[in-house]
């Protein structure tokens, strides 16, 4: 039996369990949860521009909005789908339509009932045009069969794992129709104090400081949430966050909240834990990208040689203090469904890289093989160090390097709008499902001038496009996995861009906080099950 049918089984049984009142998260501990208390959380970044940014808006609004807005289903830490607002999602025999059964007795924070109309509105007015974009290109229509049943209709067959990933992913938040209908969803003022079905209600957002949530007393899952109050607070400086932990003013911080060297110091006393689970559905990698518009990089050997010139273990050990791994192939190693080791390997070997470059027609002339501009995107502090290291690594091959580490806006502009770089160092976070979050970096239709975080190298290969096109409509999961591995192998040999290191983000959490990090994207989870053992 493949893992996929097992998962189908799980989703139905879990749904039944929840429906019969045996509620509880998959990884609930053996202890009896305690009710009450205030949890203060943060993450390794800044305050969001708005508590909810309908088209996405990055990790920060995603963190704040997901405590209020829920999705139909969610992905657990062992990559199984669990019901949230939907109790069951079933494809038709031809995979061109899906029937969604919704949970009964769910109400919005303002008291209105959550119904099939809401989901129809979301599918056609929010997900397809605004949040999911190309992922839902095939979606043709949605209709409410009855108040708790929605049918989604597609132009082409849609793989089940793919659709469920979209619904459980960043773009699948369910917003209230009665508030958004007829307004511009993106600029609706309610986005600064969103109303949802989630376990927490927004009480107050003090800009520049924190947002305070109160327990939703009418949450559909009786007994949850365990917390009375949740506060998300922002510090701009990682060292200040470490100090806040130590001073007892912070309980949990996701996505590398504190300087990495401080992790050992903080966790040694047993008062804090460093947790690496809960990030598999947003696998962050640092990539190196070779601009195909430059003559030098049209030669595949040159790209491969430069890959071999970089000691990625050094980057993982020194820049990330061991909180990263050298990447293998184009798919993150934390992706237990699609990852394969069976791809071209690029071990650190300067001599070999030199030989390849000599053979490719780039010998050392006048002390230099060629000159290139290296742009390291300045949104992560580590990229400064990686840029400096990669510059040195290329200089060891007698390549002249001009390094720039521009600020966020300039980096976006140079890499994704103007394509003004020879080699770029960037980042992306891929979901477990590879389409489109991973594939769009390699496919021809991923080239969209001015749209960030996709194919900026200009690489185009009909063979690769074809594999991805097949994957898009392949509904047999084992066959789909095989296609994904073909894609990975081809992308890795071609190397227009490749991940250099897979980051291993850490959640720092006080040891008396329980039931955290149980889903594949913990930061974007509702946190209803968290409780405090105090």
């Amino acid at each position: 039996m493949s893992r996929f049918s097992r998962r189908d089984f799980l989703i139905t049984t879990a749904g039944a369990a929840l429906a019969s009142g045996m509620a509880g998260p998959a990884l609930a501990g053996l202890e009896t949860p305690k009710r009450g208390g205030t949890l203060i959380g943060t993450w390794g970044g800044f305050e969001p521009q708005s508590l909810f940014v309908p088209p996405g808006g990055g990790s920060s609004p995603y963190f704040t909005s997901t405590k209020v807005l829920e999705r139909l289903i969610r992905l657990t830490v062992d990559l199984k789908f669990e019901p949230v607002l939907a109790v069951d999602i079933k494809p038709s025999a031809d995979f061109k339509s899906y029937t969604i059964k919704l949970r009964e007795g769910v109400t919005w924070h303002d008291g209105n009932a959550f119904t099939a109309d809401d989901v129809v509105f979301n599918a056609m007015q929010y997900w397809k045009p605004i949040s999911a974009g190309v992922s839902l290109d095939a979606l043709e229509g949605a209709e409410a069969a009855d108040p708790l049943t929605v049918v989604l209709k597609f132009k082409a067959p849609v793989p089940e794992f793919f659709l469920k990933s979209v619904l459980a992913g960043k773009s699948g938040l369910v917003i209230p129709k009665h508030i958004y209908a007829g307004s511009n969803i993106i600029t609706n003022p309610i986005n600064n104090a969103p109303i949802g079905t989630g376990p927490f209600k927004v009480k107050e957002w003090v800009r520049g400081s924190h947002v305070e949530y109160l327990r939703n007393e009418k949450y559909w899952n009786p007994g949850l949430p365990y917390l009375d109050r949740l506060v998300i607070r922002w510090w701009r400086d990682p060292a200040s966050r470490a100090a806040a932990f130590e001073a007892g003013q912070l309980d949990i911080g996701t996505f590398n909240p504190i300087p990495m060297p401080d992790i050992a110091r903080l966790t040694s006393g047993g008062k804090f834990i460093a947790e690496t689970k809960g990030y598999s559905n947003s696998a962050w990698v640092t990539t190196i990208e070779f601009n195909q518009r430059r003559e030098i990089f049209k030669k595949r050997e040159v790209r491969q040689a430069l890959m071999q010139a970089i000691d990625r273990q050094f980057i993982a050990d020194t820049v990330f203090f061991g909180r990263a791994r050298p990447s293998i192939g184009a798919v993150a190693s934390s992706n237990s469904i699609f990852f394969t080791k069976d791809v071209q390997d690029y071990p650190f070997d300067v001599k070999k890289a030199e030989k390849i470059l000599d053979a490719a027609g780039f010998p050392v002339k006048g002390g230099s093989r060629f000159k290139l501009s290296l742009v390291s995107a300045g949104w992560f502090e580590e990229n400064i160090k990686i840029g400096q290291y990669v510059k040195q690594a290329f200089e060891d091959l007698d390549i002249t390097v001009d390094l720039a580490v521009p600020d966020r806006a300039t980096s976006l502009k140079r890499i994704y709008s103007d394509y003004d770089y020879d080699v770029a160092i960037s980042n992306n976070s891929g979901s477990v499902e590879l389409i489109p979050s991973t594939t769009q970096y390699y496919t021809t239709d991923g080239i969209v001038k001015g749209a960030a975080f996709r194919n900026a190298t200009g690489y185009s290969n009909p063979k690769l496009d074809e594999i991805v096109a097949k994957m898009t409509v392949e509904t047999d999961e084992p066959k789909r996995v095989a296609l994904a591995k073909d894609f990975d192998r081809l992308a890795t040999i071609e190397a227009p861009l490749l991940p250099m290191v897979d980051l291993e983000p850490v959640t720092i959490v006080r040891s008396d906080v329980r039931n955290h990090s149980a889903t594949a994207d913990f930061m974007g989870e509702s946190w209803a099950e968290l409780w405090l053992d105090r």
Partner: protein
Amino acid sequence: MLNLAIDFARRFARNRAALIGLLLVIVVVGVALAAPWLFPRNPLRIVGRPEIWPFVNSRYPLGTDSLGRDIAAMIAYGARTTLLIGLCASLTATLIGITIGATAAYFGGWIDEMLMRFTELFQTIPNLIFVLTIVSILGQKIEYVTVAVGIVTWTPIARLTRAEFMALRDREFVQACRAMGMGNLRIMLGEILPNALPPVIVLSSLVIAGAVLFESAVSFLGLGDPNVSSWGRLIGDGRTLIRTSWYICAVPGLAIMITVLALNLVGDGLNDALNPKLRDR
């Protein structure tokens, strides 16, 4: 002229603190000049194990940073960058400041009014934000950081120059020059400026110190030039390690402090030596 210089030196030397400051400045300049001989390799090269503490390994007397780069080498080369930024920014600021201040005071009237409003405009915009904006427009090159710092620090110089020129422009010797039919430019540069210069020079020496601090703040916020070694960048890089390897911040922090202190002492000494009226009063 020689007599004047000797007189000046004697007055400067009377201030012991200023002498110490001068000595420190000379040491910093010496280190900056000698950097290529002391550390022949590129200071940004990774040479050893990361985070070696100072005075532990004799090859890296001041230790290594989080990537394993030699802090001593970065400090020595950083002295070049820092001094260059300080000097050039101060020069830029002084040039702009004198031009605007002198023009405003000499011509007076609506020109004065316009230029003073212009000066006020620059005083209104928060300095650091202005520097950041300029750096993000021009790019993160050390030259542009310098220019940006120069552009935001000229206003006090302009005001001071204006005040000095105001006091001097109606003096007899200036009127005599006018009567002789001297051109405006010649009067301004040849006659008034030399007399107005001493307090301006003192202020300029303080602007150098300010520029050094500005650069460190820009680097702290992550907008420095990644291709050169500078003290500010070293602090910026080291600030995530402030709790574990605090020396990475402390060493360049001390270097900045000593330099700024020395420049201040020299500035005081210049003040005493150039404005004897003040002292003897």
